């Protein structure tokens, strides 16, 4: 046997990895700087497959990085900036120690700063990549913007986060791309569709902060630094796609300047503009006057079936986007203003609030054209007759249901129906809560099977005629919708009612025979199965049935629960 004896840990995985400390030394950075660099550049630690080999025989748990990644980091120009900053801090400390105030001043003026633009470009080579990854950035920005300015992080960071968050919300409003909202116990989840990408983010409730001690604020601040830069560039590009002016400007400035007498109460002159933007009550200025979308879609070809389906979907979507169009909301002071204003404006509604609540209110409570007044207290003293007084959940449920839900269940002092999560996608055979079933039925345009409601309405008949009118209107609308639905079904070839007409006998027969044939085939196939396959098949079928059985059980339970609760509810209502 010839050749040199191979030494251990000189090739293979041992040389592909590098421990964190070694990497840090190789870059000659402090640990904090190294961590920051890794976050900014998107270099993550890696778990080796064979730790003992990588760790040169030791089994001590360590953080490893891929050596190639670290080599890549060596080329980063920011590394030099980090070192510069270190020297800067040292000099500054020295100057402070020697009380050389002019020197301190001069150094502070020449503070080294670095840019992240090239890193963003590098990590997200195309705009769509950036949009796809904006979830994290949004959540972080909205989170940081709610922080108190008490020194947990830089005040400037908070301000920047706030600015970017407002810009994003304004974009969502302008593009009408909000899809789902979910009020959870943690915060408010939003989902929007931006340029074909679904983007989910969470916004904390206002004033809900304790600062957990087990979170590394420095790491979070670094992430925020990266994400604010990313979000800024994304916002700019998004504004461009809609021909909006960036930085955002309010449309119809003259109107606003007239009402500016009471603005001094809210904000300094320098800040009032950004505050007005943050109020979300006015639309933004465009670089090019907006063209009506309808005109663009005039030329459609009604011939193809597939096309029409798509078109229907599109139409539905468009209708969804204009859910609140023509409605005028007024927010009472106890409801979450920002969230509601955002959601309502996203679907084309008009919204205002009390002048003393926040800057940017557009009309007063006394306005006669207000259709919905959102209140979150059991009773209200002064009620106007021509508007609905509803609880805030109605808005969110409407958005999730994609239709205007009947308002009766959301009146003041009424026990609300549960707020269902729009993020749950039920597959076939799952248990579906009855509220959702009702919603689905409403979406299809059917009249909800509500015995209780009708009884109550009869009882309440004398109280408000208007409401009745409204419900009648709704009924009509629903009738129309159901008609449309029937037509649609007919077009698809499903039989609604059994009608024996000579012309249609044959196709139906063919269908049935086809189905029968299929069933027969399936039965034969089952018969022909081998023992082992049969066993598997049976198992699968059993599992499916069990699933259904469980769902049925849950439904029955729910029914029992409801039945048990019903008398109580009725009593309560009668008392009211």
């Amino acid at each position: 046997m010839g050749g040199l004896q191979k030494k251990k840990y000189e090739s293979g995985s041992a040389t592909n990895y590098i421990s964190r400390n070694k990497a840090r030394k190789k870059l000659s950075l402090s640990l904090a700087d190294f961590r920051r660099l890794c976050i900014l550049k998107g270099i993550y630690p890696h778990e080796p497959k064979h730790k003992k080999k990588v760790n040169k025989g030791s089994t001590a748990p360590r953080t490893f990085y891929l050596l190639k990644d670290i080599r890549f980091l060596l080329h980063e120009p920011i590394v030099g900036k980090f070192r510069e900053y270190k020297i800067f801090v040292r000099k500054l400390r020295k100057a402070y120690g020697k009380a050389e105030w002019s020197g301190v001043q001069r150094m502070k003026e020449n503070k080294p700063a670095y840019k992240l633009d090239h890193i963003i470009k590098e990590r997200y080579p195309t705009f769509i990549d950036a949009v796809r990854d904006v979830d994290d950035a949004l959540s972080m920005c909205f989170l940081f913007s709610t922080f108190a300015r008490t020194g947990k992080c830089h005040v400037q960071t908070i301000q920047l986060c706030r600015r970017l968050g407002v810009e994003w919300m304004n974009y969502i409003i302008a593009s009408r791309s909000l899809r789902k909202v979910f009020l959870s116990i943690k915060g408010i989840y939003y989902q929007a569709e931006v340029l074909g990408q679904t983007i989910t983010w969470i916004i904390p409730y206002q004033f809900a902060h304790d600062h957990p001690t087990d979170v590394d604020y420095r790491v979070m601040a670094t992430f925020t630094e990266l994400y604010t830069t990313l979000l800024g560039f994304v916002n700019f590009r998004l504004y461009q796609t809609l021909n909006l002016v960036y930085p955002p400007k309010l449309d119809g400035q003259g109107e606003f300047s007239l009402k500016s007498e009471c603005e001094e109460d809210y904000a300094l002159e320098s800040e009032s503009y950004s505050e007005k933007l943050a109020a979300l009550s006015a639309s933004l200025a465009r670089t090019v006057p907006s063209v009506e979308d309808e005109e663009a879609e005039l030329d459609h070809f009604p011939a193809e079936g597939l096309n029409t389906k798509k078109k229907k979907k599109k139409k539905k979507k468009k209708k969804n986007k204009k859910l609140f169009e023509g409605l005028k909301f007024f927010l009472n002071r106890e409801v979450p203003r920002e969230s509601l204003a955002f959601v309502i404006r996203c679907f084309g509604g008009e919204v205002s609030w009390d002048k003393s609540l926040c800057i940017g209110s557009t009309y007063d409570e006394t306005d006669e054209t207000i259709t919905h007044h959102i209140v979150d207290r059991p009773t209200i003293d002064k009620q106007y007759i021509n508007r609905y007084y509803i609880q805030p959940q109605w808005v969110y449920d409407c958005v999730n249901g994609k239709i205007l839900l009947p308002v009766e269940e959301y009146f003041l002092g009424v026990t609300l129906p549960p707020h269902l999560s729009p993020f749950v996608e039920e597959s076939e055979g799952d248990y579906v809560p009855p509220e959702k079933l009702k919603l689905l039925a409403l979406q299809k345009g059917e009249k909800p099977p509500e015995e209780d409601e009708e009884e109550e309405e009869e009882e309440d008949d004398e109280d408000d005629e208007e409401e009745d009118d409204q419900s009648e209107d709704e009924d009509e609308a629903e009738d129309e919708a159901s008609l449309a639905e029937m037509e649609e079904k007919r077009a698809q070839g499903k039989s609604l009612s059994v009608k024996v007409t000579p012309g249609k006998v044959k196709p139906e027969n063919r269908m049935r025979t086809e189905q029968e044939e299929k069933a027969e085939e399936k039965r034969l196939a089952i018969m022909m199965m081998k023992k082992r396959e049969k066993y598997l098949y049976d198992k699968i079928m059993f599992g499916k049935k069990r699933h259904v059985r469980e769902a049925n059980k849950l439904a029955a339970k729910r029914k029992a629960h409801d039945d048990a609760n019903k008398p109580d509810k009725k009593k309560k209502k009668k008392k009211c």
Partner: protein
Amino acid sequence: MAAVRKHKRVAAAQPGFLPIKSSLDGNSSVIKRRKRVNKNKKKSWNRFSDIQDVEEFLDDVRLQERATGGLIAEKTDDTLFFVDTGETDEKDTQEQTTVKKGKHSKPLRIDLILQPDSHIQAPKNVLAFQQPNAKKQRRISERAAKLAAMGVLPRREKLLQLRSAAAASGLSVKEHPVANNNPDRAFYDLWSAGTPETADPYYLEQTKKKLVKRPDRLNEKPSVLPAVEVIAPGGSYNPDFFSHQDLLREAHEVELKKQKAEEKLARQLAVNEDKATEESTFKEQVEGLIEEEEIEPQEPEGDTEDTVMGPTATQEKKTEKQRKKEKAQRIKDLQRKVERQVIDKQQQLFQLRSISASVKKQEQRTEMRQAQRKVQQEAQKSMPRRLGRLKFQTPDLDVQLSDELASSLRSLKPEGSILKDRFKSLQKRNIIEPRERARFNRKYKLKYSEKRAFREIE
């Protein structure tokens, strides 16, 4: 100098020249006997030539210059003589003016004594007036003048002009890099197609300013989990009864598991139940004293038995016969084995079906295992990896109990912290490694002592 000297000599040679010390003339007329010396060496020239007359003459010239500021012979008559016309009134007027001036104008006598009385100006210090690098600087200035004439300004001048122009227009030329968290920072279209390569790529490469291409591998995410995980439907502020129960059950199970683990740990760490009682301690103290007699005699016996452990070296040698026998046996065994194998092979022909069945079975098993492994790998992709000293700890589920649920949005009390949620999400997605807050460990105990001043007050 030479010219001056020559001039002096010429002056002295003239017939009208008046030497001040007339006595010297008389001495010079005495003629001495000449001594004969070699004149081929400079040394001897200096030594034996008589230069006294010349020196005397030069001394006289110097004296004249010192005393009068030039040769007397060359002076005009006006400067040497004046016409005495008796006393005038001027003296009185002069006195009056001097008196008026007072003491201040009169110089001190000591100063007058120290005043140089020579009429010759002191020679200037040449070095004091010399400029270092004068030639170079002259050349530089010449060059600058030439460039200025051509219209080219030096860099400093240009910068100054720029700065003054900027100050006039109100903009700052020197671009201080904007901090990343500046709330008013501007953004631009980062992804527009026309981002210009500002310089020649070769130049950038050579000056190490070209950015290294990011490997595609780095753009893959370390986990398949979504960035924002939406809470279960039971986490709604006004949840559906069943989904809320589901969430509660889930949380309950997590709690149970935790409790079980804790109990197990407690059980393992529990101290043995039999604690020391009075009786047991007494027994322990007495133990050696009572039963010693019974134990002692047994010990030596045990010792003797223990010593005969392990193999002994006294194995007997095998005889020739034995060896042969063993060898034959070995060969026989081997032969039998080979025969058996041949027979087995023949028999396998008849076992074909069962063999094929077993092969099939094995294949199936490997396939199943492959599938399993694949599933496991898929599941691993969404699992938090072990990235450091600490394992990822799943955060507690955020749950509100049935009686904690808010009746309206207004009275909702948010649960949990989103900051922590985000932080944990980053850890879960393997973006950062789980870490512990570095604890402060004091190496030495603090020593407290009262200050003297404090003690004095007491």
